[in-house]
């Protein structure tokens, strides 16, 4: 059909020359035919697609955005088609709303934001179909298998907060805390370390996913180590070194680890030569008004305790605990580090009476066969995700670190809880998981795209605790991660943007009237 129309178009000038009477009419006719030809060509693509064999190959796209469950409020999942071709055509459709079509002469496919958002919003809970056609060297369009993703009914928290840093070992000159609107590609800086003389901003913690009730731990040679406390638009600082601070969900109380980490380097480990081991680690808590640290009776001095995380109702503090081989004077770090394996524990806390219970074992390292680190509880109180690592409590550098799940409704009362390895794990390192406030989404750092650089991945968590296939945080340029030399750590989902200005944070940090943490 298009060939016939093209023949007619070519013939029109000859006809026009022969008649010479009504050139304008001929021109209009030619334009109309051109439009018809274009429509016919499009139709032929689509009809060609319909006629495509059922065994059409699956398209190779990067990032891998196939077979996913995606939030209805996510930015366009732009991708690159890894198939040769001279032109590319993509059609995105769902049961309701207008399909989105993108045609490109390059394999980079970028969807228009507004049309994408509308399509997703009007199809929450339904399927999203993606068809790809590629024009080959023979000028024929080839259709690939349809990629089907599911749009979840539940939204994800709209903002992701993360730290970007070079995969540094002992210095940090380029580092910052950023927030990203998940529905768009807008990224803004919360705190750039160039603003405070190249210090380190680490361990940001939000209370109940609220970015305006948060803490950011700072390490700085100039301004000392301190904790920035953001509370409803105001910023205060408390001088002192804290690690892994955790806000109580209902009270202005922060539990934290107080530790002495050591950076170790491996001479022959292939993927990441770094390692961090703690020679001393205990748990304390303090009221934000006083700054007086009290020791949590979580473990005796011969043990290491760390990675605190509150249960959703604030009645339990979960943490990791291990016997310290370094408590034996003859042991050296080099001999001892592979033996350090943390159990998962919890201890009851009565916030009204400020009283602690007795430690309970949740899951032992012996049962799991691995050391347990970074427990993270879902806001609905049902699930606990943690990292299982070969040893120690620093899974970020362990290539074998995977994510595990505990169903807190099954077990307890003296018995160990049921656990399983989560399907979102990969052969590379997974760590730093964060829950969405509705307990249906998680974000975590993973090195599956490269064993050195962490990238944030999102995944759906079903009511039964099963997870959907994880996918990387989408970027406007789908090749963005291919050459990004900064690593993403500690991705944290937030219910909105952090409103405190960078200037306010820096001003508070430089303010000389600090309170100090009073250690016991």
């Amino acid at each position, binding site marked *: 059909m298009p060939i016939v129309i093209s023949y007619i178009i070519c013939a029109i000038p000859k006809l026009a020359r022969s008649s010479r009477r009504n050139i304008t009419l001929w021109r209009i006719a030619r334009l109309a035919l051109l439009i018809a030809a274009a429509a016919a060509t499009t139709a032929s693509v689509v009809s060609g697609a319909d006629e495509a064999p059922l065994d059409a190959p699956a398209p190779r796209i990067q990032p891998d955005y196939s077979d996913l469950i995606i939030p209805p409020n996510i930015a366009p999942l732009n991708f690159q088609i890894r198939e040769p071709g001279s032109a590319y055509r993509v059609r995105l459709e769902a049961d309701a709303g207008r399909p989105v079509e993108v045609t490109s002469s390059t394999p980079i496919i970028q969807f228009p934001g507004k049309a994408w958002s509308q399509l997703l919003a009007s199809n929450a809970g339904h399927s999203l179909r993606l068809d790809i056609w590629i024009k080959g060297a023979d000028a024929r369009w080839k259709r690939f298998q349809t990629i089907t993703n599911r749009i979840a009914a539940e939204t994800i928290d709209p903002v992701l907060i993360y730290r970007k840093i070079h995969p540094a070992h002992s210095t940090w000159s380029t580092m910052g805390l950023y927030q990203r609107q998940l529905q768009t590609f807008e990224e803004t800086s919360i705190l750039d370390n*160039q603003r405070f003389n190249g210090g380190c901003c680490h361990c940001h913690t939000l209370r109940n996913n609220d970015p305006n009730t948060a803490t950011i731990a700072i390490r700085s040679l100039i301004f000392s180590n301190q904790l920035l406390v953001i509370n409803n638009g105001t910023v205060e600082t408390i001088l002192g070194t804290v690690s892994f601070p955790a806000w109580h969900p209902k009270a202005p109380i922060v539990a934290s680890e107080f530790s002495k980490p050591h950076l170790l380097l491996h001479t022959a480990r292939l993927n990441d*030569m770094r390692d961090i081991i703690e020679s001393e680690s205990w748990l304390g808590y303090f009221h934000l008004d006083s700054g007086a640290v009290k020791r949590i009776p979580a473990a005796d001095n011969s043990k290491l305790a760390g990675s605190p995380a509150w249960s959703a109702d604030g009645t339990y503090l979960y943490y990791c605990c291990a016997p310290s081989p370094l408590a034996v004077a003859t042991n050296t770090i080099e001999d001892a580090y592979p033996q350090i394996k943390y159990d998962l524990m919890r201890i009851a806390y009565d916030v009204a009476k400020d009283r602690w219970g007795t430690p309970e074992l949740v899951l032992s390292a012996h049962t799991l066969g691995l050391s347990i680190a970074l427990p993270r509880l879902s806001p609905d109180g049902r699930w606990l995700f943690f990292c299982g690592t070969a040893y120690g409590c620093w899974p970020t550098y362990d290539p074998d670190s995977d994510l595990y799940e505990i169903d807190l409704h099954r077990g307890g009362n003296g018995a160990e809880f049921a656990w399983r390895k989560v399907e979102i794990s990969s052969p590379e390192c997974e760590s730093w998981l964060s829950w969405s406030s509705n307990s249906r989404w998680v974000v975590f750092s993973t090195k599956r795209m490269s064993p050195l650089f962490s990238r944030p991945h999102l995944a759906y968590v079903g009511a039964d605790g099963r997870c959907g296939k994880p996918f990387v945080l989408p970027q406007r340029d789908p090749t963005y991660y291919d050459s990004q030399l900064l690593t993403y750590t500690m991705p944290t989902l937030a219910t909105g943007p952090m409103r405190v200005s960078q200037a306010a944070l820096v001003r508070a940090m430089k303010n000389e009237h600090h309170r100090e943490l009073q250690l016991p």
Partner: protein
Amino acid sequence: MFRCDRNAHAHAHWRGIFPSAVGLAAIFVVLWQGVDVGLIYHGGGVIPDFPAFYWGLDFARESLARPGGAAYYVSSLLMQSLFLPWFGALLLTLQSGIIYVSARRCVKALDLPAPDVLGFTAPLLFFGIYVRYGCEAQGVMDLTLALAALGLFTLLPADRPGLRWAGLVLGLALLYPVAAGAEAVFTLTAALFEWRRSGGWRMSVGALALGVTLPLVEGWLIFGLAPEEVLATLWPVAQVHLMKQPRGLVPFGALYCLLPTLGLGALARDAWRKWRARKAGADTEAESVLRPEIKPAESKKLRRESREAGKTQSEDVGCFDWAWRGGWIAKTVLAGAITVGVYFAAHDQHFKTLLAVDYYACHEMWSKVLEETARHPVHDPFAACAAAQAAFHLGRLTRQLPEMDSPDDLLCVNMSGLCLDLGLVNMALHSLADNVELSGERPLLLRQLVTANLAVGNLPTARIYLNALTKVPFHAQWARDYLRRLEADPSLRTDKEITRLRNIMVKRDVVGPPFPTDDLLGLLLNACPQNRMAFEYRMTHRLLSKNLPAFAQTLKRVQDFPGYEVSPLWEEALLVFSREQRVPALEIKARFNPDLVQRLDQILQAYEANGHDAKATWNQLRSKYANSYFLYYLCHP
């Protein structure tokens, strides 16, 4: 007659700019050949924060999203030109030319004497930054743009205050997003200039007020910055950069202060003249001289007159007011001489040697490393380490002990090139990660990261570095070629360097720090007994630390290297071991040359004669037995 005048005018014009042109040409030659700006590009791990540059929208968008982003983008691109020293020197000279022309124009507008001399101070200070191997690219670019804007501003006619106001507002408004670091220089100089010109205090105060308020408004509206954040961006150098003690800060600071200082000087001179005139009872006259009131009706006529007079005035262009015949030749010679003089006054040969040694070592130009350290001996562990590496590659490490303060300096694990050479791939990765943080994303470091990651089989990470390099000027082709090779052969079995590294790299996992040098070299030899470099390094380290039993023990591994000849230096060490430990020569399978024995006896006799004074013995025998291990063993602390 008319033609004759034109020719005379043209000659005067060219004579006028000739000295400055020669000065700039001297800057070019010295930057290229003397300073060798390619060494700044190389950095050697000692020049911090070299600006990275990547082609593409992402980098441009990131750069332009901050105040002064345009200058940052252009200066980062400009610094990449230093990869080709001649090209980099040429572009830097062009930049200094712009600085000169703008500064000279401002000096003239301030009615200061000798605009050539004062104007040429600016490019000399600029030159001084690079002579000191400074890398304040963005700050300098900020100032270049601010000076150019000032130069244009001074061209606005004095009798059109409206136009000047417009120029001022436009200049200030553009400078903040384009070159924020130099906004203060523009504001101050423009205010001083206006104070002197005719508008009186109103325009000066207006300029100062605008200089503060416009950045605040723009910072808030365009970049979403709070007032104190805006003020922080108006500094030409970030505090975090200053902490790394960058080089060339003195000329850089002087360059920033030059024009405001000259403006203040002009004001002071005016005040002094006025005071003198008042004293002479000629206040009114002085006032009219200093601030001529121009009535609008006369302005057109005045402009026409000034245009006509311009030709005559321009004969002054480039002159030091040396009217005598041939004065321009003297000026030319002086301009060149001053430039060269600045080079010799500000040049830091020690630093240059360090950079050059590291550059040659990284590019495997081993004989050049030894030449450079011999020509300019420097007392530095990195240079000593590079010299030892060069000595190994030239087959001299076993014949002459490297000069080291400490035996452990032999293996400097912060030198990624040396670590890769030896096979300490993980140490190289560690060193490179720290270097990228310290020195910026320098292409050489990224290339080494590619090699190291490929060696350990970390292909996805190597690809990320390669993809980044495809956007870097001068390295894109190398990266693309490598990516193609990776596509064709992901295992890279045909790549000689990768295969070599995989064969010799450490296989046994040990954690540290500390990593004792001898243990690291032992790990390398355990991984690959044929690693000749590790073998010679271990032996040399044991000689340097006078651990002769271990030396004699490891010497047995010489059988791993067929045809290996034990050097006289090592024979001496064996002889000392044999004598000291009373081990018969036969037991260690050595047959000592009688000359060797005689030499040892001579040195021992001298040692006895000096009353066991090691220093005296060293001074006495150093010239004769400089390469003798006997002397080292006896006299080196």
